[in-house]
């Protein structure tokens, strides 16, 4: 008899112990849009988040590569996902009393664009999106002021150079990118092979307007076979800066969403940037 009590206690405790019912979740608006100074093209990506219970849409040809999983050694495909777009939304941009309606790309669900709007520095733009399901989203961005790269200005680079630029008004920070041009001779084919890639991304705060090239790991290129570098410095408004600063850390699920999402009622970003660039050659 007494041995029957123990399973009964376990059963009772299991019943009263806890609530393991997962929370229910339905999709919410998800937007991506970064306006660029002096560009006449705008693309607003309008989509929705998804519950973990939903099956995500995949396109078969987006399975690009395979990896070995560390724990089970099974082959694991790398998947590139399409934008989970929402069709039929009303999307418009407003500035200085003018309202511009953006049209959906018929070939890409959820992509709304216009190629006739001129985005000037220091102007404030408002985004209005009305989802077919009724959600209304509003957001605002002020485009950072124009600025220029002041150093290095020589056509050769060394590891003692310092990258410098003038401050940009309304910028919350800067994104520095290096586009490297690579060329080498393929001895078997007797041809010159050209390649390029972005690398060396670095995000700095608004009070930083110079960086030693060493910190950009320029040495990689000095000793590599790159021919030249194009240096991009993008001044980001607060929305775009926070989106980059917090949003890239995928390993910390507890980073507060309100720290970097500045769209009331939606996930994502409505931000802006002003870009300065300079092409320089590597000292060989």
């Amino acid at each position, binding site marked *: 008899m007494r041995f029957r009590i123990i399973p009964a206690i376990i059963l009772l405790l299991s019943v009263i112990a806890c609530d393991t019912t997962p929370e229910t979740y339905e999709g919410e608006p998800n937007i991506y849009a970064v306006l660029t100074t002096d560009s006449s093209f705008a693309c607003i990506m309008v989509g929705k988040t998804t519950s973990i219970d939903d099956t995500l849409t995949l396109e078969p040809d987006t399975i690009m590569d395979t990896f070995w999983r560390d724990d089970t050694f099974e082959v694991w495909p790398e998947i590139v996902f399409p934008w989970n777009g929402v069709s039929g939304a009303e999307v418009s941009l407003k500035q200085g009393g003018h309202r511009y309606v953006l049209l959906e790309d018929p070939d890409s669900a959820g992509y709304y664009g216009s190629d006739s709007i001129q985005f000037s520095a220091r102007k404030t733009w408002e985004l209005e999106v009305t989802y077919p399901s009724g959600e209304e989203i509003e957001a605002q961005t002020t485009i950072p002021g124009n600025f220029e790269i002041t150093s290095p200005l020589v056509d050769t680079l060394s590891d003692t150079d310092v990258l410098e630029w003038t401050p940009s008004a309304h910028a919350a920070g800067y994104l520095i990118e290096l586009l490297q041009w690579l060329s080498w001779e393929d001895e078997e084919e007797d041809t010159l092979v050209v390649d390029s890639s972005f690398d060396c991304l670095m995000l700095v705060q608004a009070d930083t307007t110079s960086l030693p090239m060493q*910190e950009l790991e320029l040495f*990689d290129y000095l000793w590599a076979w790159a021919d030249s570098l194009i240096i991009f410095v993008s001044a980001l408004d607060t929305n775009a800066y926070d989106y980059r600063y917090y949003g890239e850390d995928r390993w910390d699920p507890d980073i507060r969403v309100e720290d970097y999402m500045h769209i009331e009622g939606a996930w994502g970003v409505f931000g802006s940037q002003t870009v300065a660039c300079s092409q320089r050659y590597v000292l060989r």
Partner: protein
Amino acid sequence: MRKGIIWAVLFLTEFLFAAETGMVAGFVREAESGEFLSYVNVYLADKSMGTATNKQGYYVLSRVPEGKHTLIVSMIGYREERLEIDVRADKRLRRDFYLKPQPLGMEPVEVTAERARFEHEVDVGVKRMDFTEMRQIPGFVEQDLFRSLAMLPGVVSVSDFTSALYIRGGTMDQNLILLDGVTVYNPYHLMGFFSTFILESLKGAELYTGGYPARYGGAISSVLDVEMKAGNSERIAGYGEIGLLTSKLVVEGPLPWGAKGSWLAAGRRTYIDAITWTLDKIFNPDFSIYLPYHFYDLQAKVNWDASERSRFTLSGFFGDDVLSFKEEEEVDLDFRWGNGTLGLRWRYLFTPQLFSLLGFNATRYRLDTEVIERDEPDFEETSKKIEEYTYGLESGVGELGLQWGLTWFSGPGHTVEFGVESKVIETMNFMEEGWARYDKDKRNQPDTSWDTVRVNQRDTFWLAAVYLQDKWEPGPFWVIETGVRGEYFSNGNYWRASPRLGIKRRLTADWAIKAGAGLYYQYLYVPYPRDEMMLKIPIQFFQQWMGAAERYPPLKSTLFTLGTEHLFPKDMSASVEFYYKDLRNLREADLMGGEGPTTDTASITLGQGYSYGAELLLKRGYSWVGYSYSVTRYRFGDEDWFFPVHDSRHNLNLSFALPLGKKGWTLTSAWVFSSGFPFTAQIGWYQHVNEEGEIDWMPISGRRGEVRYPPYHRLDAGFTKSFRLFKRFDAEFYIQVLNVYARRNVLFYDYEIDENGVTQREAVPMLPVPIPSFGIRARL
């Protein structure tokens, strides 16, 4: 007004009757080892008067009527001592006792230590554990004090990978851990798997989960007061143990050259490094299983009885963990962390009624980490260049303190304690990153390099305290403990006063009710991590201690407890306690969200919390059943209230030791059940466009702590077999198994999207399989 007069009369009565009475006082020790015995019942044969020894084994029976009496000294497990005494008016008798151990069951036990404590201590929220109780809970690799304490109601351990204790809703930094009165800040080994104390060198531990006396301060949730053995003052003795991954040796004996006193030295070392190295060499697997990790502990204590009145004690504890390896000259990793304490005590009896304890304390915890990564650039095969990235982290806390306490046995059942304390505390956090590029073999002459100090914080604080505590038994059925503690903390100029109150009323000879209340402050803390997973995985070495500051007042708790306890025949007891705890000025920080550890107080969010619950403990001998119901909620900043990671609604612990036959076999077992711990579930995905324009799915978290893991339960069991080693030494062989039925308790869930676009939730278990360990130990 009327009550005030009654109290005044009672006080006056003590003095009026003083003239016709005498006093008897002394120490009670164990005969074989000379160890002082606490909570021994000392009473007159006619039971008209009685008391219990205190923690130092000292008793005072004052106001004993003039004439001849029989004094009885009794404790379970020891032969009762009776002594005829002749008490003269105004005379003080010093009578010390040496109790001889007696096997249980030989005589009926009338008066136990449990009863002495029951009759003379308020004991609100106090749990005691002696060496035998600690030893019976099977452990990982070996038995462990903290693992044993986690079997008590009200104490929660959140994962198999950490021995950190969460007590009545508090976090691990809210526990004051003392070893012989000296604070130990981070007493964990193997990144938190088990605690640093060598069990066999300990006499016992007292865990105050609430309502602790005014002599303790600096923690808002609990006090764990661990006491080392004094050492055998009668003969040289020893203890040795050889286990699967650790070995230890304890040696003790009387002081040489005729000096009165004793000494004890204990050491322990793991040989995980040697075992894994050997296995690696023998089996030569595809990937190395060599783990270059070890830890060691050294504990020592010397007691010198300079006179009958004066005793000096010097005790120290040193332990380090070392993880150090070089991987084919690509990575150098050097982790070292550990504790060191030193305590010097001078106990002096001014009179048999006035007891002084002067102490000097030094303690430190430090973590020292250096990681060096080397790389040969692909495009530089001919130039033989090396690129080297260096990451260094140092963190620590230390203190130097002086304390002096007076204990005055002012009358029958009346003890007054007064004390002052002063300590200088230093916290330090330093983080540095560097990079260099150099020709091979010319590390000291880099072509180019940079070095950046990310964090460089060093703070010094001064903490001063004064306390007054009064324990009074105004009649045979009452015990009243009142106290107040005043504290000053230099950083922010904080003056705080903490009143304490504990009352026990015995309703019958075996049944009592008790209540306690108190206010507690804490000046040093470790922020609650925003990423709660940090509390569940073995990284307890990485604790960043910070001090209260101007904008961040000391942590504060207010605790109310109500309880009842009952003693049954055959050494059985039962207690039930209800509590409510209010927590203020809690801290939260995103410790790992940025580039590394943060000491930026701007990143800290203040919060509050509360916890309430009920605890039940049924105990018989060394077996017990504990159950607790508790609710804990925290709130930081403007966020909603949430259940923190250690909120365990129901907790059931069963622990028993069962002799099997007469051939020396004993079965020890512990079963723990906890309702599921809270976690923040992932409920969805949102799309993020990264810097390169690629679209990723990123997790959306649900409400914080809203969902719970499945219930946690685990059975640990062990067998011991007693035998005579070389026909000379008492020895035991033991084998124990953790997680006997291979329960896969969930550590966390991992979410991934598979190739069909379906989210897969994978439960990552704690200890997924039974973990056996065995060893042999002997008394020498």
